[in-house]
């Protein structure tokens, strides 16, 4: 167990810290000629952290001998019977030195079984440090940085701005000198990719190369910073940190919509939102007083994590998981601390106790979103986001609704109109009730289907009188004892009809109303005339239809046809004096002088609802408007946001980090670790206060961590190479003065991001050539000290964007919902729940959006991008890896995205330069892709390749035709297939060149 454990511990840790360490040591020995005291922060603490803190560090539970070496008191204070573990200036008397040099395996530190032995040089340097007075420093990253003064250096073209002073000073210490400035072709391509993620156009290259203004380069940087592409480029990196995805991660990994948050990030960067505001709105936008929709959307940063919908899951287990994720992400991103280590126990290396972890956790623990969320869309809290056209349409609809409502009020008929209507009613006087004969039934009659049963005349439906002693069509009449005014069950076979007949004896010619119901279809005939008919599919009930019966004096013949489509069947019949409801009828049959208030009300409301024609039409208009409003509201985009509970839940330390083991004896209130500055006095005790604390100008971490991350984007690696770990086991800054200067300057500038980036990109350091000289490889193989510009492979997204841009296919729409470009079949269903979820590819211009907009399903992300090191984004990732694999070669050679881009690019080269030679076209292609024309070697090699492929395709025309069909984009007419195919080989070759995949 221990051996295995160690096996994995030693490799990576040793390599990382080991290699750095040797370097630092060399630097120290070189520069100090051993008179200068050894730096505690640079040299001693990393050794102690690696070898001693596990047992003599912050974790109370694993601490041995009650000795703590991560704090000043522990090193220099009394320990047991000893005066101190370290006595400055007295190596021989210091227990620390005695123990690390001890011969006895029982006494030597670290104990052999920990397998963390110190090397001889490590022991010596510790002794040297003690002997020279043991100067102590607090951990550098926890101390508020002071702005270092600029080193005084002899002027040189390299020294463009303060950055270069610090870099040059360091290089001088190390015996290195800066590289010369890169040529303009390299610079423009580098700056384009770094600031926009896209290549410069040949026109931009030409303009820049010919620009004689001495500030041409600065102008270029300003232009790129102002480009909207800048926001997209910056957002891509932030999406990794914010674990952005279009799916919910756990279990079903269903769809969600968080792209409005992504749009917010793009806009924030393009508007150069100050980083403190950027921070506050994303961590606590919802808590800002009178928060705008945009600020609430920003708070969705902490809704991007994975959520579950699994049937048997326990809500609280996942709810806690989400809070744990928010703590981790927030602390990794803003503090550069692995606070997540303290979920189950005190931090092993950094001064964060488990209790402090839960103080931090308490800020997020009052969030109102539940553990069980949806697999289909967004879970509350959320905001609705109206597009401009939706807002416009809604305004239109609502103002029309107001007009209609006003008309309804204004034009409402007066009392006289209503009285006039009542006076005109025939029903005013009660009529003698006609006599109803018994029901006779004929049928059922079968039909092929319900429609036929409804339409077919099975007997003489339209005969004016019916003799029930004779068959009706094929069936005889039978008398039935069916009750009126109650639904009657008929028990008809499916797809059949039945006829019901009765006589009505009226004393006078008068109008009566039949109230009807049916299951399913119904027709009514009176004296041979069809009065009503409707072919429904329904269950029977009273008053489903009404029909006016104009009765003649004497015998009337009433014939009902009831149709059954399937299942139950039945009918309802009641003869009413009037079509008016009974209460209305009762009222109108009174004299107006007898009307009480209720009568008036009943009459009026009946009149308005049923008789007033204009009112009916106005109400129809209103209904249409309401349904329009609803359909817009239903299509309104939502975005998940943070929101706190109305009555906040209490927080407790979770024993061993387990959701079901709160230590109820002590409630934990929100707070920040004691090793970091206190909260601002007026900070509210919620996330807003936490965010304000983070962006307090005196905070030692936030600005450094942010500046370091920006540095990494443009210089390949951070000044602190462990970009997410500024704790005691993180890497030591390769140039702390520079880091501190940048951090302080950043805060002083009002957290001005574009200004900071401009400073970096206009520095002499950035402008250096990336050529790796031999002495670089020896003295600084990893380029930690920047005697050259880094050279690195583009991120996967930019590799695809580059191909799209070169081919001319790129769709430059910014923002909006994610899209589904080409992807091999069966990537989704192979892993999806039930195995039935298939990727539905988009068509047309959605195939060519920038790659950051590709739908990101986190259980099965786009395979080409994953091959190029895009993280799945299930968790916060601050620094992507950069690998170099054969599978990447397969993507850029064979993925239809790249093959299509190659052939469309080839087509455009041929069509846009109709009279050009091969070499002219090739030069143009190289300027497009590398910002410089092809040299002799490239010309010769690729012309040979072209000629051989042209000959090949001329004799293999079918192959040519197959190749130029790749992808959906239309093939130009009148283009020679062999020529296009041969050119496609050339453009595909170019897309696979190191110099095209790489930012020089």
């Amino acid at each position, binding site marked *: 167990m221990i051996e295995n454990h160690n096996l994995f511990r030693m490799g990576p840790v040793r390599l990382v810290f080991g290699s750095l360490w040797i370097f630092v040591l060399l630097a120290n020995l070189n520069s100090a000629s051993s008179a200068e005291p050894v730096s505690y922060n640079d040299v001693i603490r990393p050794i102690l952290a690696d070898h001693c803190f596990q047992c003599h560090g912050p974790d109370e539970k694993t601490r041995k001998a009650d000795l703590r070496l991560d704090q000043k008191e522990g090193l220099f204070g009394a320990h047991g019977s000893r005066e101190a573990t370290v006595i400055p200036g007295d190596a021989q008397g210091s227990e620390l030195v005695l123990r690390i040099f001890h011969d006895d395996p029982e006494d030597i530190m670290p104990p052999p079984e920990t397998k963390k032995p110190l090397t001889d040089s490590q022991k010596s340097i510790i002794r040297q440090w003690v002997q020279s007075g043991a100067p102590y420093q607090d951990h550098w990253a926890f101390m508020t940085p002071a702005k270092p003064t600029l080193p005084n250096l002899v002027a040189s073209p390299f020294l463009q701005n303060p950055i270069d002073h610090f870099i040059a000073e360091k290089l001088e210490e190390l015996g290195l000198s800066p590289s010369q400035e890169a040529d303009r072709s390299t610079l423009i391509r580098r700056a384009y990719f770094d600031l926009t993620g896209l290549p410069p156009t040949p026109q931009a290259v030409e303009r820049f190369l010919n620009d004689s203004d001495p500030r041409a380069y600065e102008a270029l940087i300003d232009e790129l910073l102002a480009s909207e592409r800048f926001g997209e480029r910056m957002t891509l990196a932030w999406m990794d940190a914010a674990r952005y995805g279009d799916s919910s991660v756990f279990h079903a990994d269903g769809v969600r919509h968080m792209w409005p948050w992504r749009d917010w990030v793009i806009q924030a960067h393009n508007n150069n939102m100050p980083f403190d505001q950027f921070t506050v709105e994303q961590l606590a936008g919802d808590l800002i007083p009178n928060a705008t929709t945009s600020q609430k959307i920003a708070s969705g940063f902490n809704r991007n994590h994975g959520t579950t919908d699994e049937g048997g899951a326990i809500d609280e287990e996942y709810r806690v998981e989400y809070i744990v994720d928010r703590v981790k992400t927030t602390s990794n991103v803003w503090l550069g601390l692995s606070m997540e280590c303290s979920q189950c126990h005190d931090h092993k290396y950094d001064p964060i106790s488990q209790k402090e972890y839960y103080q931090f956790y308490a800020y997020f623990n009052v969030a109102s979103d539940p553990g069980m969320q949806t697999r289909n869309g967004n879970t509350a809290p959320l905001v609705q986001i109206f597009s401009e056209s939706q807002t416009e349409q809604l305004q239109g609809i609502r103002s029309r609704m107001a007009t209609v409502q006003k008309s309804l009020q204004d034009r409402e008929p007066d009392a006289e109109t209503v009285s006039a209507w009542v006076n005109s009613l025939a029903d005013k006087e009660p009529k003698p009730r006609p006599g109803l004969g018994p029901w006779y039934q004929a049928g059922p009659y079968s039909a092929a289907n319900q429609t036929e049963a409804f339409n077919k005349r099975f007997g003489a439906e339209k005969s004016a009188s019916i003799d029930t002693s004779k068959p009706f069509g094929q069936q005889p009449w039978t008398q039935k004892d069916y009750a009126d005014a109650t639904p009657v069950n008929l028990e008809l076979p499916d797809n059949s009809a039945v006829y019901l007949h009765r006589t009505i004896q009226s004393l006078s010619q008068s109008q009566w109303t039949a109230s009807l119901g049916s299951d399913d279809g119904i027709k009514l005939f009176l004296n041979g005339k069809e009065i009503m008919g409707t072919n429904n599919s329904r269950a029977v009930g009273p008053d489903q239809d009404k029909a006016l019966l104009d009765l003649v004096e004497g015998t009337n013949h009433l014939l009902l046809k009831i149709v059954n489509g399937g299942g139950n069947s039945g009918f309802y019949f009641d003869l009413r004096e009037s079509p008016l409801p009974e209460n209305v009828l009762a009222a109108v049959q009174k004299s107006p002088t007898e009307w009480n208030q209720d009568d008036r009300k009943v009459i009026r409301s009946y009149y308005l609802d049923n008789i007033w024609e204009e009112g009916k039409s106005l109400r129809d208009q209103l209904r249409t408007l309401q349904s329009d409003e609803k359909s817009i509201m239903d299509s309104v985009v939502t975005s998940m946001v943070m929101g706190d509970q109305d009555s906040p839940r209490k927080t407790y330390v979770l024993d061993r980090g387990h959701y079901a083991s709160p230590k109820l004896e002590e409630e934990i209130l929100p707070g920040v670790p004691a090793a970091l500055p206190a909260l601002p006095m007026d900070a509210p005790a919620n996330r807003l206060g936490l965010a304000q604390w983070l962006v307090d100008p005196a905070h030692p971490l936030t600005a450094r961590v942010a500046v370091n991350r920006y540095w990494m984007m443009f210089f390949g690696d951070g000044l602190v190479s462990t970009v997410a770990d500024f704790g005691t086991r993180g890497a030591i800054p390769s140039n702390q003065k520079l880091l501190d200067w940048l951090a302080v300057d950043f805060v002083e500038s009002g957290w001005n991001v574009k200004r900071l980036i401009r400073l970096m990109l206009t520095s002499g350091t950035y402008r250096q050539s990336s050529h790796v000289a031999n002495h670089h490889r020896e003295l600084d193989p990893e380029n930690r000290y920047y005697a050259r510009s880094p050279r690195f492979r583009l991120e996967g997204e930019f590799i695809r964007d580059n191909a799209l841009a070169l081919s001319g296919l790129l769709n430059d729409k910014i923002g909006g919902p994610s899209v589904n470009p080409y992807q091999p079949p069966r990537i989704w269903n*192979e892993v999806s729940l039930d195995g039935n979820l298939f990727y539905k590819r988009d068509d047309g211009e959605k195939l060519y959006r920038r790659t950051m907009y590709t739908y990101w399903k986190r259980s*099965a992300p786009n395979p080409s991008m994953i091959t190029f090191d895009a993280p799945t984004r299930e968790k916060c*990732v601050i620094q992507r*890896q*950069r690998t170099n694999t054969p599978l990447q070669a397969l*993507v850029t050679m064979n993925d239809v995205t790249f093959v299509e881009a190659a052939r469309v690019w080839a087509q455009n080269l041929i069509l846009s330069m109709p009279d050009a030679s091969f070499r002219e076209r090739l030069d143009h292609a190289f300027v497009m892709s590398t910002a410089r024309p092809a040299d002799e070697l490239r010309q010769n090699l690729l012309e040979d390749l072209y000629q051989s492929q042209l000959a090949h395709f001329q004799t293999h025309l079918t192959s040519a035709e197959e190749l130029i069909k790749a992808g959906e984009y239309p093939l130009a007419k009148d283009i020679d297939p062999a020529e296009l195919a041969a050119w496609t080989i050339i453009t595909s070759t170019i897309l696979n060149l190191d110099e095209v995949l790489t930012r020089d």
Partner: protein
Amino acid sequence: MDLPILNGHDLLNRRQMISLGARGFGALGLASILSPEILQGSMNPSEKRDRFGLLENPHFKPRAKRVIYIFFSGGPSHIDMFDYKPAMRKLHGMELPDSIRNGQRLTGMTSGQSSFPCVAPMFEFKRFGQMGTWVNSDLLPHIGSIVDDISIIKTVNTEAINHDPAITFINTGTQQLGHPSLGAWLNYGLGSPNRNLPGYIVMISKGRGQVQALYSRLWGSGFLPSKYQGVKFRSAGEPVLFLSDPAGIDRSSRRAMLDAVAEINRSKFQEVGDPEIETRIAQYEMAFRMQTSVPDLTDVASEPESIHSLYGPDAKKPGTFAYNCILARRMAERGVPFIQLFHRGWDQHGNLPSLIRNQCQDIDQPAAALVRDLKLRGMLDDTLVICGGEFGRTIYSQGSLTSDNHGRDIMVDASPCGWRVGVCAKGMNMEKPTTSPTTSCATQCISAISMQPSSISSE
């Protein structure tokens, strides 16, 4: 940036460092049984790293050269396959005793039930082999016939009660996301002897039962560089994504393109001196070689008829578990050190009695054939075949006994940290309803391992 390993290291923070040792495969001792051969002097550092991994020389004498990990996803019912519990007959229909449940939590699938009636074994078990190991003779006769070549471990368990956290835990060592999978760790630590194939290959087949989700994180590289993640081989179309040249580009055109790319890249290297360019040239060559070596590997049809019949009726159907088993053996022969087969469809609840029959039909003959085939070729001595799922099933019924709903739900015990390995070679105590107090009414993920107990190092 020719230092992918160093880049990787930079990304490991201490939490991650701590987590690797204690979990994942620390306790299983896999590292001890896998190992590269002797170091060869002539390789450049990057090649050496791919070949031998980070460790170069592990401090254990290696026993296995490769692993084939058969993963039954969905929660195969251990008590209906390998973990015979005849004593359950006495408890049939009775309420689940507290002494067995031991206060364990239940999933939301059954926690609302008012009653938890125990169910007696539904299938016939028999003793197989010289060791007399109990195996379900209805469903797994073929596995029964090779039982002397495997160990059945009944103490593997997980704390998770739902599929997603359990399957993530067992494949990456923690149910929290972002950690490398077992195969990625081995790939990173030990490298791969085959330069023409990935060091970690994943294949997926789908059974006829209820299918739970898989996630790319199960074979992902987590915080390690992505080159160490499992490469998914596909059952239809291209076996590896983007392997085939586009329609219209033949091998000679491809070769000519690559020659031009290499020459231009070499000239770039001369100019700028970036060693990453040399690596890229080598990787393009390997991609070209893979385009030949992979089709050769996946040419299952070239196997003799005797092999096809050994693996059973599905052996010739691409995408089946049987087909993948043959592929796994072909990969093992070619030196791929970590091969993982996912077979889906084991999420049986009320319909368990009928569905498990189909699933077992899918796997019984091929899985046994794989062990037998490896043994015939003398490869079983240094190939570790692991077989298991994310958890098993409860001994109580989901729903009421009077209905036909004899399904069993998942439920798991509380062992906080990783796999505990115990070996059950001869039958353990069959009288007790459970094999250990902690696995109680619920379940372990049974793992069958293709090695003798003596060759597995435990704690």
